[in-house]
């Protein structure tokens, strides 16, 4: 039941991405190319998605809990730090180079195109490299802390 409903939600997301043009790097890059072959379509994707989510969240979050889980799992870290901004800046550079973002590329895997698989493979390598470096720096910080105390 839970898996079927979640599969259907993924399906709605995937159809939305495919219909909207977010799975098409040419369209995504043209949205950002205001000085060249500008295609403003993605304003409508973002506008539609954020408006529906804004209204829907307000209705849903009035409930004491979601339907299938015991509580809502909302990110509550309020900090705007160098890590958030630096990471986001780097994400933007990569998005501008490739034209795919993760939300666009994952549904695009369904088209079977080799370019999408290449991008997602590199994306996975990037995620794991960053996680590895994070784990190393965490471990070193913990060691230094232990030595001091």
């Amino acid at each position: 039941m839970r898996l079927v409903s979640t599969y259907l939600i993924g399906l709605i997301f995937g159809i939305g991405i495919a219909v909207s043009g977010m799975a098409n790097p040419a369209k995504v890059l043209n949205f950002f190319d205001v000085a060249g072959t500008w295609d403003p379509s993605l304003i409508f994707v973002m506008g539609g998605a954020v408006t529906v989510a804004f209204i829907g969240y307000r209705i849903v979050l009035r409930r004491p809990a979601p339907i299938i889980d015991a509580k809502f799992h909302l990110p509550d870290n309020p900090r705007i730090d160098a890590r958030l901004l630096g990471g986001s800046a780097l994400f933007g550079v990569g998005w501008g180079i490739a034209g795919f973002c993760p939300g666009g590329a994952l549904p695009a895997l369904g088209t079977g195109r080799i370019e999408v698989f290449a991008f997602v493979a590199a994306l996975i390598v990037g995620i794991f490299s960053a996680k590895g470096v994070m784990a190393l720096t965490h471990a070193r910080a913990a060691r230094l802390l232990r030595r001091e105390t």
Partner: protein
Amino acid sequence: MPELTVIETLFTPWQSLAGGVLIGLASVLLMLTLGRVMGATGVLASVLTPSAHPDVCWRLALLAGMISGPLIVLAVTGQMPAVEVPASMPMLLAGGLLVGIGVTYGSGCTSGHGVCGMARLSRRSIAATATFMLTTGLTVFVIRHVLGA
């Protein structure tokens, strides 16, 4: 320096709006049923490290649904959604790597920060979205009008 490829795309406001509405709807339904934000980055990262994430099953179902999206579009319209890739293979790989590192440090991408976080008016997500929209735009400008000129 490889030849710069630019592919023109048509302005599709209604189609993009409809896709955006579906993306928003999927995000609201995931909050209603499982109480989770819809983030492609989080889904991919946790599916790849199942031991660290005990509830990997629903994320796999979500991912499977996402990937089926283009196939449903194909079944209904008789046409696979367009995936036109102006980026060369080295650019796809470099871009994917940067996106992977960026979203890991930035804790999210277009779906998590850009749709769900913005809809919750999270200051962190608004800062992240503004940052990556800016660097994506700058990157596209540099590639197309500085290096490619």
